[in-house]
């Protein structure tokens, strides 16, 4: 048990270190810590379109570099977080957002899992009820038990 646990911890630690090594290094100077915070938040939340499973923060692709610079420049010009997000969405579509917006088009995306869970629960409940029912049918009534006892008794005699 201890062995498995220590291996697991090692694995987690190693995967974290990999993440740090893979992150591109650039130095941006910000006027305020708030801007820096928004910068990191945005570049984590925006998808790099060249390598789609990476965020703009993680990717080494040229376009991701350009987009980081763009986010930085906009922040320094005093643009808000929302303004920068809509700048990106206007150009690249909702697809740049790792967190899709909440609108009629994406309702299925947001509610889908809950709906599937709901139907799953209905199925499980019905299945369990059916199981119970079949058990009751299999179990014998008192009369039956009496009859069996009588039969046994009759045989003995």
């Amino acid at each position, binding site marked *: 048990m201890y062995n498995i646990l220590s291996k697991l911890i090692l694995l987690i630690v190693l995967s974290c270190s990999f993440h740090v090594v893979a992150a591109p290094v650039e130095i941006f100077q910000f006027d305020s810590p708030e801007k820096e915070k928004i910068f990191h938040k945005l570049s984590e939340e925006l998808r790099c*379109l060249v390598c*789609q499973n990476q965020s703009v923060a993680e990717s080494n692709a040229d376009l991701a570099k*350009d987009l980081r610079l763009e986010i930085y420049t906009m922040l320094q010009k005093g643009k808000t977080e929302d303004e920068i997000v809509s700048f990106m969405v206007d*150009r690249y579509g*909702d697809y740049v957002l790792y967190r899709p917006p909440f609108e009629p088009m994406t309702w299925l995306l947001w509610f889908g899992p809950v709906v599937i869970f709901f139907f799953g629960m209905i199925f499980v409940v019905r299945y369990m009820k059916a199981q119970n029912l079949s058990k009751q049918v299999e179990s014998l009534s008192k009369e039956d038990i009496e009859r069996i006892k009588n039969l046994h008794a009759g045989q003995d005699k």
Partner: protein
Amino acid sequence: MENNQPSMMKRFMPLIVFVALTVLLGIGLTLNPREVPSPLIGKPAPEFDLPLLLSEGRFTNKDLIGQVTLVNVWASWCFACRQEHETVKYLSRNGVRIIGLNYKDEPDDAKNWLATLGNPYQAVAVDYSGRISIDWGVYGAPETFLIDKQGIIRHKVIGPLSDKEKYDELMSVMNSLEK
């Protein structure tokens, strides 16, 4: 006998679920996630003012108005651009107005490339930093935009035009436009 109906249903339920899932996942797998639909379709071409590659002077979004135009985003470092080049030349020979948008390229490399492979462009605008291409939602070359007479973006092709399916789609949109 009464039990027969629901038990048949029950028996086939896993199969039905399996087939439904297979169809769903099959559709998902055949979609190409690299082709992100552009939100710019139906909107006017973004404003820009860029220097020309092969001559003095500049090219702006206003120069796109008045004639159906293809804006082809390319670079000399882009392999797929080489792949589609014959198709671009073919279109140009057949009277389609094509404007090149040279994306994040060294001007000398770009000039050499055109000299070697042929120049199908009526004009080539230089986006050295790639900043204007961000406004166009470009995320990789080659990309081709179809602009109508009013300067509205009507269609976008992601990847080489030499792909038959993409080419046919572009042609059908182009033919539906007012000349």
